[in-house]
């Protein structure tokens, strides 16, 4: 039986465009992986109706939400609230990874109470630093590269079946590696390295989970 992976990735402003780009590689890889079914709610498809329908009918084992958020809500296209306390029951039996601000501490425990296997996210604002001259081409933005790597490490680890706790450990190692190694003259032409290291350390501090650390995507 195919493993089912659901992703929402709006792309309506600078931040969501970067998150959209961060997730592009795992979407490509997952779609090429045998025995894996990918539902890609991209751009304006990342709306509440589509998310509800997919959660209820497709029963994905892993749900990756990209977008803005706060303690009790995660948003999709044009900041429509797509996950909150009124539909969090649809997370039952699933691993949820919200790459958004704040939702871990509010929505996370409620998701687990309602039956989610695990809820991974950030307990404060997710931060990154970009090069304003690269807004039109996030993939070429060297400032965003260490953030892309950390986000990729986590979702890649989850997609390929590592337990949630191990995926988090690997991601935290990636953050620490970037903090230590970022900032040579080659990759820091504008002197942004100290601020980039701060944002990496911030994300390292506030990335965590609720639920079963041994849960894995199946």
């Amino acid at each position: 039986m195919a493993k089912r992976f659901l992703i929402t990735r709006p792309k309506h402003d600078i931040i969501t465009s970067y998150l959209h780009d961060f997730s592009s590689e795992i979407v490509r890889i997952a779609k090429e992986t045998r025995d894996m079914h990918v539902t890609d709610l991209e751009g304006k498809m990342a709306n509440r109706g589509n998310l509800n329908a997919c959660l209820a009918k497709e029963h994905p084992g892993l749900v990756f939400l990209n977008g803005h958020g706060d303690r009790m809500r995660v948003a999709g296209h044009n900041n429509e609230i797509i996950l909150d306390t009124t539909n969090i029951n649809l997370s039952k039996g699933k691993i949820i990874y919200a790459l958004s601000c704040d939702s871990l501490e509010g929505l996370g425990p409620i998701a687990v109470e309602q039956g989610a296997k695990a809820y991974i996210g950030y307990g404060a604002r997710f931060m990154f630093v970009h090069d304003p001259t690269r807004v039109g081409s996030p993939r070429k933005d060297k400032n965003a590269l260490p953030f892309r790597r950390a986000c990729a490490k986590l979702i890649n680890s989850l997609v390929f079946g590592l337990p949630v706790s191990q995926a988090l450990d690997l991601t935290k190692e990636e953050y620490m590696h970037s903090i230590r190694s970022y900032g040579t003259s080659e990759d820091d032409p504008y002197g942004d390295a100290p601020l980039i290291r701060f944002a990496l350390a911030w994300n390292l501090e506030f990335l965590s989970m609720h639920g079963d650390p041994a849960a894995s995507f199946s």
Partner: protein
Amino acid sequence: MNQKQVEEECRKLVLARFRSLNPDSKLLLGKGKEMTVRELIGHVEKPDEFGKNVIKVQMRMLKVLTGV
């Protein structure tokens, strides 16, 4: 040195580090918001709750950098 003095020294250290940066450099946050280094410094100077977290994270970052 008591705990309060240690916290004040940490705050001064973090301020010194941020003041060495371009004050107009920006962090991207959620909800389409940005925060300049100048604004970060303002949070640490007070320090408000956000500023206290900034100090905590900067001190952790220094530990990562120094391998402590």
